[in-house]
Each structure stands twice: as structure tokens, then as C-alpha cells.
């Protein structure tokens, strides 16, 4: 079923809170002018927000309740590069990579809507590769922590036993999100490259026409992964 864009209302005609009430009380779709795929992605991201919040709040609880000193993240995640001991450097690099991937993603959405198939494709591939390198660095970080530092979910030589459980749960769940994002980025990039979106070819498991909105929906997910990292970086690594 094609999405008809023939509204009887003037989009955004009523400003402010009255407009919100009008939209929600209209006895029609509440999110007017928003493709449903995008609305559903936002609602999924909202639920994901609660999941990550639960992880971070439980991390706060165990860190507040432990009577043993918490390991200093600045030192745990320090690396010796070029003969210099730099605190937290790997995490900083990972942060910059994820932000860069968010930038390329945002531009992929823009070029997608402009029907610039090639630029959109290469920006999506760049985003996916940045994401993959992020996961690679995380794998390196985990290996270093498990093998060299002896961190386990039930204890570690540096301080409070809850450190490992919090670390593996939070970064593991985030890394899983990034990995899934990378896979979907490659899938969407493939669709863009084939021209499926230009020709409005239906997707693999849907009868709906392909359109460049899916690049924006993909982008929402990817930016969310970056957004979660902002909070993890602040609360877990810097606090």
C-alpha cells in the first residue's frame, strides 16, 4: 500500500503545544508527515534508551554501594604509545571514530534524499568501515583487559569486583548494537548501490516500495549508537 501524501491538514499549521494536542487528538495518525518506518524506529530507540539507562543506573548502584575502591578507568584504559604512557587514549580514539562515522552517516542521508546514489553509497560504506574499526578496537580492549589485566565479571586485581560485570555488560551491549548497525549499513549500502531505492523495488521481507527514507531510518539507529557511547564515555570511562 502506497503511503498517500495527500493530507487535508496544513502540516505544522498550529504552532506550539496546541499543535501537539491537535495532532494527537485528530483521530488520525498522530505523527503527521513522519514516515511510519521512521516513527517506529524512534519508538524502538526510545525503548532501547530505557535498556541502556537500566544498565547505567545499575552500574551507578553497584559503584555507590561498594566499600572497595573502584578501579581508576583513566589508568585501566591507558596505553603506552610511542614510548609514552597516555591515559584513556584508546577510548578517546574510539570516541572520535564513532563521531566521524556519525558525520558520514548524516551526510549519507542528505545525499540519499538528493538521489545521489554513488556518494550516498560510499558514505554508507565509510560509516560501516568506521563502525567495524570501532568494534575491532573494542575487541582489542576486551582482550587486553581479560588477558593482561585479569579482569573477570566476578572480580579483578585492581579494586571493586563489580567493575568487570558493569564493564562487560555495558560495553558488550553497546558493541553488539554497533555490530548489528554495521551489518545493516552494508545491507542498506547494497540496496543503494543496486539502485533498488531509485527504482522503488520492494525489500526482501516486505512488499513496501524501497525509498531513500530507509537511509534516514538507518541513520537514526546509527546516531543512537553514537549517542549511547556519549553517555558510556562520560559515566563509565570519565567519571
Amino acid at each position, binding site marked *: 500500500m502506497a503511503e498517500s*501524501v495527500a493530507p487535508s491538514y496544513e*502540516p*505544522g499549521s498550529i504552532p*506550539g*503545544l496546541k*499543535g*501537539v494536542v491537535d*495532532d*494527537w487528538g485528530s483521530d488520525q495518525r*498522530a*505523527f*503527521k*508527515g*513522519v*514516515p511510519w518506518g521512521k*516513527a517506529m524506529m*524512534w519508538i524502538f530507540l*526510545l525503548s532501547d534508551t*530505557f535498556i541502556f*539507562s537500566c544498565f547505567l*543506573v*545499575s552500574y*551507578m*548502584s553497584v559503584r*555507590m*554501594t*561498594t*566499600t572497595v575502591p573502584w578501579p581508576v578507568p*583513566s589508568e585501566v584504559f591507558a596505553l603506552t604509545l610511542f614510548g609514552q604512557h597516555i*591515559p*584513556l587514549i584508546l577510548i*578517546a580514539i574510539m*570516541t*572520535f571514530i564513532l*563521531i*566521524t562515522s*556519525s*558525520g558520514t*552517516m*548524516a*551526510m549519507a*542521508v*542528505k545525499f540519499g*534524499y538528493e538521489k545521489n546514489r554513488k556518494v550516498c553509497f560510499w558514505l554508507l560504506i565509510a560509516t560501516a568501515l568506521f563502525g567495524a574499526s570501532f568494534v575491532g578496537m573494542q575487541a582489542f580492549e576486551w582482550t587486553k583487559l581479560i588477558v593482561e589485566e585479569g579482569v573477570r565479571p566476578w572480580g579483578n586485581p585492581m579494586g571493586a569486583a563489580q567493575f568487570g560485570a558493569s564493564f562487560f555488560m555495558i560495553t558488550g551491549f553497546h558493541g553488539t548494537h554497533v555490530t548489528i548497525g554495521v551489518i545493516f549499513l552494508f545491507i542498506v549500502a547494497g540496496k543503494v548501490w543496486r539502485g533498488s531505492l531509485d527504482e*522503488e523495488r520492494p525489500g526482501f521481507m516486505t512488499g513496501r516500495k524501497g*525509498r*531513500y*527514507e530507509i537511509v*534516514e531510518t538507518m541513520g*537514526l539507529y546509527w*546516531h*543512537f549508537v*553514537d*549517542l549511547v557511547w*556519549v*553517555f558510556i564515555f*562520560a559515566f563509565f*570511562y*570519565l*567519571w
Partner: protein
Amino acid sequence: MSTTEGQQHPIAIYFWIWGLLFVLSACSYMVDYLEFQGYLRWTLIIIFMLLKAGLIVAVFMHMMWERLAMVYAILVPPLVILVLIGLMATEAEYVFLKRLFFFSAGG
């Protein structure tokens, strides 16, 4: 093929936000590098974090151009997490004091 529903914005804004996010990330890294401690550290971390999160949601996720019905539906519910944080912090404080008492005085 309608493009009326698409989000079209000048590319310059993405570069600006990208640059700002880099600067803010560098700032939050410097908080650690310069070894700020205590309330100064926590305040700076939270300020930089909220600025970054705000920029990502508002511009990269196009929230500032969405209809208010959508914006409120997505951004208001997470505020209840503040209640959860308050509850859990109170609980954690209590547990911590109990642990101090039992571990030192042996119950």
C-alpha cells in the same frame, strides 16, 4: 516519488556539528588528561555530555526539524529515568552505610 517528507538541509550544518562534536569530545578528554577532580570534574563531564547528546539528537537525528507531536512523544518519556536515578541513588546510599556498619562492626 514524493520528496516532501525527506529531510533536506545544507551540508554545512553537518560539518559544523561534526566539528563541534570533535571539540566537545576533546574537551571531555582533557578533563581526564588534566586530572580535574571532584565537583569540577563531574560538572564539566555532564555539561560536555549533554551538549554532545543535544547536538546529535537535534541535528544529526533531525529532531529540531520534526513536528512537536513527535518530539514530545520521544523526548519526554526518558525524563522519568531521572526518578529511577533518584530512587536508586537513595537506595544505594542506604546499602553503602549498612555495609560500612556490618563490615567494620561485624554486625
